């Protein structure tokens, strides 16, 4: 592919590409993001390719392996264009039927369609499925249609036209004004206005400057950046190049966590293709602007998601954060002005340039403009990645899009912002999602992780879980975090094990203050948040654990006992046979009893007891009823 040397040449190539593509040609797009790979999409892909060949349809049907579609609960997903027929949870065995029936005969296979759980209506088209219908997929929309390993696909949908506009029709000042006008705020957690960050670097008097993509995405449960980087890597590259042009940088880094091999692969391919075509390198498209991008992998440290620690890691050192007194947009990587932004932030840039800041600001609330991609996970029916305009309520996201809580359970809390964030209870469901709104409620936007919790989740354990995570990930440099957070973890662990005592909450609050005010970086400063927010909204659970040695959610092992209800047990022996500790006493027709001395609380009996009996119960905060007598245990015909 010869280098493109001017915008005119680019338009020629784009026209040619479009003329070669028939919009009415049958195309099967298959979600090939990492999450769908885990559910077997590779095998489905192979099966489709084989079947198309077998049925002699290679010229009539295109196959396109795209990035993440977002509806991860129902993967693997295929969409058949141009009709936009959407089939969910495809297995390789379904493929021959799909090809013969739908591709060849235009017949819909109903069992593979989405069925609305409330109305039982079957929905054919992807965009009508409630999960998608209520979203605003400005960023993720392209994931459904392009093959991330193909720059031609990106060009066919107008890719790199923002870069052309910036290089040939705008000067850096104008680009900066547009970004500032859009009020684009950082999507990685800080929510800092990107335009102001860029301005600081632009005005810093230094000849060497850098731009960085933060693709470290360490928040557990958050994988939006991975899906963007895997599914539409060129959009990130384009945004990065625009940013570099604006501040005057010629070198960019993409810091990707090594736990994302597909993202590393796809961004590598994208960079090579962009260099071949001339969108990266020297004298880009004949504009005189030079820009090159280097990929650098992380090595397994959450703290490296913090911008100053990330830069330290790029310099080849252990990821210890630096104090934020000297801002990194003035003195960052190698002490040079550096703009570091999150993947999603960069991906928004071409949209803003192509459509204008005014277009962008029509989405969102007054202070939080645009859309945000959330990873909706945990106790939720429609697990997946959702993109909504800021200002949508939590209730709509969780229930309209997320489909509510599985198993008919009660919603308890939504955790946002990762380990730096907090838990919000049912009273907060009408909160409109936005940076400041979430912070005021006691949580934060963070990178977009949204973990749903139900009545079976113990909130004290949630606080312990996050502190455990942070203790493991702390860099260890400063006392408030290394020692303080560790002590908080100790106390919380004791509370969940029934060893809580008077004064624990007060000590936790003291330690929380020291971490918040005295820690060196944001990891330590925000470490107390999960504890503070759960204490605020779920204080009764803390008191139950400490004073009554009771876990209301029936989760904390040391505070629960397993008990077989003699009224319900039918002596089927299933739990007895599966108990790894041989702790169940019983026989056929003799009601089973759990030997509390031997029971290891592994939960197996609870899991395996058939639902029509539901005889195994968990008890907390009260003594286990004494076993019934031998005679009473015998089940005779017709009894009960």
């Amino acid at each position, binding site marked *: 592919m010869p280098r493109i040397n001017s915008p005119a040449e680019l338009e020629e190539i784009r026209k040619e590409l479009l003329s070669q593509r028939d919009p009415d040609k049958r195309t099967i797009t298959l979600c090939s993001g990492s999450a769908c790979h*885990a559910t077997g999409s590779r095998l489905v892909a192979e099966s489709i390719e084989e079947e198309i060949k077998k049925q002699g349809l290679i010229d009539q049907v295109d196959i396109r392996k795209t990035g993440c579609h977002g509806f991860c609960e129902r993967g693997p997903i295929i969409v058949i264009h141009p009709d936009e027929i959407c089939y969910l949870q495809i297995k390789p065995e379904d493929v021959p039927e799909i090809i013969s029936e739908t591709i060849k005969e235009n017949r819909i296979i109903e069992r593979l369609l989405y069925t609305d759980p409330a109305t039982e209506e079957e929905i054919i088209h992807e965009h009508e499925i409630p999960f998608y219908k209520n979203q605003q997929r400005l960023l993720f929309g392209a994931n459904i249609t392009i093959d991330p390993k193909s720059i031609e696909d990106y060009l066919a949908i107008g890719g790199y036209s923002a870069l052309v506009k910036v290089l040939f029709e705008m000067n850096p000042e104008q680009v900066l004004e547009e970004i500032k006008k859009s009020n684009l705020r950082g999507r990685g957690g800080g929510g800092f206005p990107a335009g102001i960050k860029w301005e600081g670097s632009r005005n810093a008097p230094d000849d060497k400057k850098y731009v960085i993509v933060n693709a470290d995405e360490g928040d557990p449960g958050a994988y939006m950046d991975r899906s963007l980087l895997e599914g539409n890597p060129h959009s990130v590259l384009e945004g990065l190049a625009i940013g570099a042009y604006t501040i005057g940088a010629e070198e960019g880094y993409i810091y990707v966590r090594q736990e994302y091999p597909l993202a590393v692969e796809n961004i590598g391919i994208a960079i090579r293709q962009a260099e071949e075509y001339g969108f990266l390198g020297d004298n880009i498209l004949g504009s005189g602007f030079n820009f090159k991008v280097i990929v650098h992998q992380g*090595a397994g440290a959450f703290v490296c998601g913090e911008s100053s620690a990330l830069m330290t890691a790029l310099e080849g050192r252990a990821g210890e954060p630096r104090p934020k007194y000297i801002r990194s947009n003035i003195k960052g990587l190698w002490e040079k002005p550096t703009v570091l932004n999150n993947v999603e932030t960069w991906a928004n840039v071409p949209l803003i340039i192509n459509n204008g800041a005014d277009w962008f600001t029509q989405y969102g609330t007054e202070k939080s403009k645009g859309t945000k991609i959330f990873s909706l996970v945990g106790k939720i029916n429609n*697990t997946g990645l959702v993109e909504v305009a800021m200002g949508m309520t939590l209730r709509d996201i969780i229930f309209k899009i997320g489909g509510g809580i599985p198993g008919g359970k009660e919603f308890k809390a939504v955790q946002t912002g990762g380990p730096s964030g907090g838990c919000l209870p049912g009273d907060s469901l009408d909160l409109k999602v936005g940076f400041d709104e979430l912070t005021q409620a006691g949580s934060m936007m963070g990178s977009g992780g949204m973990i749903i919790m139900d009545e079976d989740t113990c909130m004290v354990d949630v606080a312990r879980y996050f502190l455990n995570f942070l203790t493991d990930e702390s860099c260890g440099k400063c006392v408030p975090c290394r020692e303080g957070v560790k002590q908080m973890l100790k106390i919380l662990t004791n509370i969940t094990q029934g060893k809580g005592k008077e004064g624990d909450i007060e000590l936790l609050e003291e330690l929380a203050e020291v971490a918040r005010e005295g820690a060196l970086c944001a990891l330590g400063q925000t470490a107390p948040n999960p504890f503070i927010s759960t204490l605020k909204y779920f204080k009764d659970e803390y008191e139950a654990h400490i004073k009554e040695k009771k876990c209301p959610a029936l989760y904390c092992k040391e505070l629960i006992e397993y008990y077989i209800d003699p009224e319900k047990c039918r002596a089927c022996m299933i739990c007895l046979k599966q108990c790894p500790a041989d702790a169940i006493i019983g026989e056929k027709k003799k009601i089973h009893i759990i030997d509390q001395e031997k029971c290891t609380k592994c939960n197996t009996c609870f899991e395996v007891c058939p639902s029509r009996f539901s005889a195994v119960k968990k008890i907390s905060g009260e003594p286990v009823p004494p076993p019934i007598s031998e005679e009473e245990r015998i089940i005779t015909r017709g009894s009960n």
Partner: protein
Amino acid sequence: MVKEDCRTEAMDNNRIDQIIEKYNCEASSLIQVLLEVQSENRWLPKQVLERISERLQVPLARIQHIATFYKAFSLVPKGRHEIHICMGTACHVRGAQLVLDKVQDLTGINPGETDLDLKFSLETVNCLGCCALGPVMEIDGQIHGKISPAETADALKKYD
């Protein structure tokens, strides 16, 4: 997936030098070099660290700090099969702790350890990004999704 026998001898110096040269012998590429060596050799023997220290002109103390600071690196040989249990928040809320407890029982090792036969290495990971499949256990890159503690025994039996 069949894994080759893990090597307990050090990687040879030629291969180490090749990797270092790929990064232009720049000290700032230390982490990238170590990642490649870890990926090929499955662990970082001391001789290898000393060679890297020499070629990149970086003090051994700094390399040791980095090799122990980042979770991707191992200073001891790993087992033939690496078990990763996801302990991300979504999986945690879906009961990952019980899965981990069960696997610890079955293998006899704790996270971060390798068993005496060098068969299994156990690690916890913070989010594999397959939250729809939680709780998740990954063995040698193969995802076992929506796994319950009772099912882990069968999954592990498949590996020798």
